[in-house]
Each structure stands twice: as structure tokens, then as C-alpha cells.
């Protein structure tokens, strides 16, 4: 039982680093069991070091770095215990464009075994989806599902950016 747990734990830690390194294009990361405690009781410590940066508390990582680190850990756990589907609600909110790209690419490793339902406001994520469902409130307070084509999504923010130049 302890054996099994440690085995799974090691596997997840390895995968955590693998997915982390893919998302960060390098760096180091691992999960460790708190030392001097019974493995079946010990808390789990997380260390993460983006490439080129000094290893330090994950507290000092930026918002986007913490998001990628947390996603790497969850996907690593998910690999050990794959699920038919996975729901992600606005997990890309703190990521810059380049990292949204990397994150959606990393999802590709899972999409042939797992269905992903991702709620998002991000155009890059939307562009990578195989289909989009739109939700609106045509009558106030009542949700309505509508089909959405990628071409339907207004380019307002970029238009405005261009207009200002």
C-alpha cells in the first residue's frame, strides 16, 4: 500500500517535471514528500524553477508562472488517473499569448483520450478548439446556447488597437 503510493507518487513527479519543462521550454520542477514523515501521512512539497531563474519559493513566481506550474501538476495527476473528460474554466486568464499557445499545445497530448470542455474568453484558445458553443442571455437572466463559428468572434480589441496607431 505504501509501495503503491510511492510508486504512483514518483510517476506523477516525473510527469510533472516533463509537462512543466514542455510548458516552460526548460527549467526544473518536482514534488516531494515532506521528509521524516510517514509517506502515507506526509504533506507534499512543490518546487519549480523556470529556465534561467534561480530556484526559490513558488511564492515568488509570477501569476502566469504559477498558473502554468499548477496546470502542469494537475495534468500530471490526470495522466496517472485519466478521466473520460476534463472541465477547465478560464484557466488561461493569467497567461500571455505565448503561454496560451504552449498550454493548448500541451492539451493536444491528451485530447485523443480525453474530452476537454474549456470555458474561455481567449481568442487563441478559441482558435484551437475543434468546435465552439456560445452562451448568451438574449432574454435577461435566461441562458441560451448558440452555435459559434470562429469567424463570428469580433476582432474589436485588435481593431481598436490598430485604430489607435
Amino acid at each position, binding site marked *: 500500500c505504501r509501495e503503491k503510493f510511492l510508486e504512483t507518487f514518483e510517476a506523477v513527479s516525473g510527469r510533472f517535471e516533463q509537462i512543466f519543462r514542455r510548458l516552460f521550454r526548460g527549467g526544473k520542477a518536482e514534488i516531494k514528500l515532506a521528509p521524516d514523515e510517514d509517506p502515507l501521512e506526509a504533506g507534499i512539497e512543490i518546487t519549480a524553477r523556470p529556465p534561467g531563474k534561480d530556484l526559490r519559493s513558488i511564492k515568488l513566481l509570477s501569476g502566469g508562472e504559477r498558473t502554468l506550474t499548477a496546470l502542469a501538476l494537475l495534468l500530471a495527476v*490526470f495522466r496517472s488517473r485519466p478521466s473520460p473528460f476534463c472541465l477547465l474554466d478560464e484557466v488561461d486568464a493569467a497567461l500571455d499569448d505565448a503561454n496560451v499557445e504552449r498550454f493548448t499545445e500541451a492539451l493536444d497530448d491528451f485530447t485523443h483520450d480525453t474530452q476537454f470542455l474549456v470555458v474561455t474568453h481567449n481568442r487563441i484558445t478559441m482558435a484551437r478548439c475543434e468546435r465552439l458553443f456560445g452562451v448568451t442571455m438574449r432574454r435577461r437572466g435566461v441562458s441560451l446556447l448558440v452555435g459559434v463559428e470562429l469567424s463570428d468572434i469580433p476582432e474589436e480589441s485588435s481593431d481598436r488597437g490598430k485604430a489607435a496607431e
Partner: protein
Amino acid sequence: MYLKRIELEGFKSFADRTVIPVERGLTGIVGPNGCGKSNVVDAILWVMGERSAKALRADAMEDVIFKGSEGRSEAPYAMVEVVLGDDEGRHAGPGGELAVGRRLFQTGESEFLLNGRKVRRKDVHDLLMDTGLGVQGYMVLAQGKIDAVLAANPAERRSVFEEAA
């Protein structure tokens, strides 16, 4: 096991019966703030047996019943049904499909359904555990909850980990 469709009626802002035909791979859910996207995520958690109102962003379970809005009175009940494809045919009803449903009436009366038949909550729970879809069995990353994965103290992390391993 894969998700084929989700049906909602009277659940939160989905006053009208709504069918979301899910398919393989990566599906995006988009729309303006407050239109109901996260409510779809809540609906899936709920029909899978979520017991905590807090996890559904509610004060009490009856808060998930459509409460009425401008010119629209409240719903008599909330209902969500997920239809799963079961190609190995181990648990499926007709057509290789497995329908899991849940209803909550304004009276407080609550129902669980498997392939249209009323069953006990426990039966749904056992089936989901069997098919790897128990509450832990699917990965859900709720809106704004990513940091919780990292911010949790070592002992809390462990419970997230154990839940999935």
C-alpha cells in the same frame, strides 16, 4: 466512456431546456460575462453527485433551481442529465448510452436517475466509481481555483493528490 450530451432544465440560469451535444477532443464554451458558462460546469459537477453547495458557488442546494428573472417566474425544479457513450457496453442502456440524471424540486425533494429509472444516490455514486467517473474521477479546474492547487498547505495538497491517485 465519453460524454455525448448534457441536458439542463431549470438549472441556475438555464431556465429553458437546453441540450449541449459534446463530441471528442477540445470543445470551447464562450460568451460574455454572466451569461452562464460556469453554470454549465456546475451542472456537470451537480449531476455527478456534488454534495457541497459551496462547490457550486451557492449558499444552499436549492439555490441551483432557476430563481426567476425579469418577466420570468422561478422554475419548479432543476434538472440535469448527462448522456455517456459506453462502447464496451458494460453499463449502458439502449443504444450503448448511459444516462445519468438528477432533479431537485422546490419542495426539497430530490431524485437520481439512471437510464430514466429512479435510483438511490448511492447507485449513481457506485456506478460512477465503477466507470472511473466518480467525483474525483474527472478533473475539474473551476474558475479562479488554480492558485488553490499551489497555495494549499502540504497536507491539503496531499488530499487533492490522494483524491486523484
